Every structure is written in C-alpha cells, then in structure tokens.
C-alpha cells in the first residue's frame, strides 16, 4: 500500500547561501519514490498556527530527502528553526513529476527563477546518464540567492546565471539568457520553474519558437492531494489542481 503520511527526522537544516536553506530529512522509503518535479507537504508545527502545511519541491532524494527553501513567512520561519533530530509530519512525495525528454531531444533546458531552481538538482540526477546537452539558466535577484552549483556541474549541467542587480552573471532577468536555447522544436525541451511572470515569459518563448516544454507551478495549497480543489489554476482545458494535476504542466497549458 502506498503510504502518504510519515513522521520523518531532520538530519540537517542550514543555509546554502545568504537567502536559501537546505533541509535534509531522513524519510525512509519515500526517498526512493520521489520523482523530479514532485513535492513534499510539510506540517511545520503540531499546533494550528500557521494552519496549512507547506509544499516544497524535492531538491534531491539520494540518502536523504532534501528541500531548498527561502524564508518568506511564518511557515518557513518556523521551518528554519528546526534542528537535527526534530520530527516533522510529511506527506508525499506528491504531484505529477516532469516527463523524461523524448529520445530525439539533444538539448535539455532548465529555466529557474530564484527558489524555482529547487526541482532541477534531482532532475539533473535523473538525467545524469543521458547523453544530451543539459543547461541550467538561473535567474536570481542578487548574489544572496546564488549558491554553489557544483552538484549540477557534476551531473553534466552547464550553468548560466543572471542577476537583476548584475552582481553575478548577466545583468537582468533570466530571459536575457534565452540566447543559449537552441530553437529546434524536434531536439530542444524546456523545463521551467519560477515566479508566474517568468513562466509566462517561457510560455511566450515556447509558443514563438514552437518549442515543447513543461512548467512547474506554485499555489497556496491546503490538502496537497487533489481533494479540496483549493489550488486550482485556469488552463486551456479548464481549472486544474496544481497539487494533483500539476505542479508540472505542459508549457502551453496554464493560462498565466
């Protein structure tokens, strides 16, 4: 039987750069179940403040289940105070993962905005053995969001960065790096995760160049299991839940 709810132990929880934390969890067999693009739904407190669980993309699932997160509110603030040995109630891994690139694909393009980089380390782990060009276009606000990309490079990923303040890489948004994308619908595949305006830009680019791709979306979630229909977004085929139908959608599907 597929077990969805577990109590897991914190192995480590520390900063990887001034803005982002990496949380590693001893999550037992859940580690083997995780697919790139899926998320885990964490109850950050035993109490009711904050009330909802918080969804996080799986960053890596090797020995431990890892997430990458930014402290943006009450939930992530509590999470950042969790120490080695603490126990957390976790659902998942949940949601629809990224699809594998088709056999004809020669260039896999991962486009990440800020913390939207999270699903791409596990994705590059899965793509490690594929003999295709892999590039990560990472757009950040500033250096505080830039961490060591060694693990990506070890998986054969070439990393290009942009920052809005120009402190690292090209100055400007991640769209400034789109020149690295080979515009061949047969052999290029886009994968994107980041804020809505960035995903909209990726969708426009994919439309303009008829490129295939997938985007990973984010919404406030309650159940995380497709039950409450609270995280629905408009798509070309009606409302779909981010937690269950997504978070990964075809790039042409969501109406941003």
């Amino acid at each position, binding site marked *: 039987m597929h077990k969805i709810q577990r109590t897991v132990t914190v192995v480590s929880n520390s900063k990887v750069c001034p803005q982002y934390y990496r949380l590693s969890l001893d999550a037992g067999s859940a580690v083997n179940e995780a697919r790139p693009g899926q998320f885990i739904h964490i*109850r950050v407190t035993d109490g*009711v403040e904050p009330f909802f669980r918080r969804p996080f993309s799986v960053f890596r699932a090797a020995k431990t289940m890892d997430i990458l997160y930014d402290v943006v509110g009450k939930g992530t603030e509590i999470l950042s105070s969790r120490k080695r040995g603490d126990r957390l109630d976790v659902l998942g891994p949940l949601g629809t993962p990224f699809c594998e690139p088709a056999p004809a694909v020669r260039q896999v393009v991962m486009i990440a905005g800020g913390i939207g980089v999270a699903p791409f380390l596990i994705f590059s782990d899965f793509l490690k053995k594929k003999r295709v060009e892999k590039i990560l276009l990472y757009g950040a606000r500033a250096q505080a969001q830039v961490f060591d990309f060694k693990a990506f490079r070890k998986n054969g990923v070439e990393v290009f960065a942009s920052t809005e303040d120009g402190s690292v890489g090209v100055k400007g948004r991640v769209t400034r790096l789109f020149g690295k994308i080979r515009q061949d619908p047969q052999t290029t595949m886009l994968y994107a995760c980041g804020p809505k305006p960035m995903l909209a830009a990726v969708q426009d680019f994919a439309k303009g160049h008829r490129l295939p791709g997938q985007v990973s979306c984010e919404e406030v979630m309650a*159940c*995380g*299991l497709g*039950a*409450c229909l609270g995280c629905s977004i408009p798509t070309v085929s009606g409302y779909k839940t981010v937690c269950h139908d997504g978070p990964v959608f075809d790039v042409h599907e969501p109406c941003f």
Partner: protein
Amino acid sequence: MNLTVKIGSAVFPNPVTVASGTFGHAKKYYDLQEVQQLGALIPKTVTLLPQEGNPPPRIAETAAGMLNAIGIENPGVDVFIEKDLPALKKIPVPLIVSVLGHSEEQFLKITEKLNAAGGISALELNLSCPNLQKKNLVAQDAGATSSLVQKVKKISRYPVIAKLSPNVTDITVIAVAAQDAGADGVSLINTLTGMLINTRTRRPVLGNVTGGLSGPAIKPVALNMVYQAAKKVKIPVIAMGGIMTADDALQFIMAGASMTAVGTGNFVNPRAPLDVLQGIKAYMKKHKINDIVQLRGSLILP
C-alpha cells in the same frame, strides 16, 4: 463496544465520517486502507450539471483555520454516477452523497438519478453552500427548507439529511423545519461567511471576494449550534466544524451529536478521522462506556 449509529433506515458502523468537500473525489485518500474503518464517506457535493467552480485564489489561510470559495467544482451527477460512484461503492463503507440543486426541480432530478443508481446509504442536501452568489441560501429560510425537504423526502429511496448553515439568526428554527418536513437527520455546520483583504493591493484575497471560514477557529461556534439544535430535534445530528481530534469530536457527542465529521482537519492531518475514531474508543474504554448512546448528549450542566 457498540458504536453503531442509525439515521433513518441507514446504519453506520461508527460515528466518525468526513465532511463533504474535504475528502475527494480524491482517489489518493481512497487508496488508504484506513478509510475502510470510517463510519461513512461523504464525497464532494454533486450538482445536476457540471460546475467549473470559482476563479482563483480559492483558499486562504486564517488564524486557526481557512477561508474557501471553491464554488462546488464538480463533474455533475451523471459523470459522478458513471465514473466516481462505482469506485466509491467498492469501498466497504456506507456512502452519504451530498447533493445541491439550484432549484427544487434540480434537487428532485438529482434525487431521481441517484435513486436509480443505487448503492447509497443516505442523501445529504447541501442547503448551505455560501459561495454561489445566491442572495439567500435554502437553509436561511425555514419555509424553503421545509418545502424542499418534503419534496425530496417524498421521492427519495434513501434517508435524507439536511445540511444547515450557521449564517442564520437561529439555526434551531431551520433544524426543526427540516425535521418536521420529514428529514431523517440534520448536519451542521457548514462554513461561516468571511473575507480577507490584501492591504498591499487593497483587493480581496479570494477571487470570489467572500468565502467560508472553517477549521478549529469555528469549533466553539459549531459546538454551541449543535448543542442548541440537538436539544430541539429528535432526529440524529451530524456535527462538523473544526474537528481535529477525538476530544473535539467527544465534545460534539456530549453536546448531542450522533455522528461527527472531520472536514478541514483532513487537509492538515489526513489521519485525523482515524485518530478521532481511535480516541473515541479509548475514551469509552477508559470510562467503561460500552455503547456510544450513553455518551450522546451526556453533557452535565452546572
């Protein structure tokens, strides 16, 4: 230990169920073996025709609870019968189907279709969804409640439960109206109407502007309403409103509820219904109570 509950002609193995809209159509939950231990299943409300639901954002977190304005997104009763019902029937747990019509005629049509479908233990008439931009809810009008319950009751082959709204002056008046019209049970409470504003954008947080408040924040309100209603009616009361733990559920049972439903609590803890059931059993064992009836309405007043 006897935990069985009767509502009309329907018998439920124990007093713990899940509130409509919080447990599916989610296949993921139904995979769980634990689900088979529940006293009843109540899937998300179905309407006569498909409904696409409200524009997002549909939910927001609040202090000890949440606001929602989903708008009864559902595939319509025909698709429900064809696609969802067969799977639900396979689960060996009595099924209460929550239904909503936008007119008496629609309620009757849905009832006829479900009569033909079979395999259902009871109907719950959702008279109280606050998120459909209707001026008045059926459950805000004793006359409308009475008329509708009477008509559905006349044709339904299943026991009929009326789900009531807390957004009224006196919920006991509506509960009595439902009872006198022939309802086999009443369930309460649905969500309390509320709203949130984003001060940065000066816009409502929810796409629907207003929504329904649920979760532990509303439990004391729900408990009082169940207590008041249970005193006035002889038919079973199904209680919901902020139940997260066995202690919450026991409070409702002591206040007079025959059954209890975990709703929003499922989102935070999918195991909550089972925890509630086990906790009720543990309480009964500890206090040497061998029939749940002995607990029902056992509140001791000062």
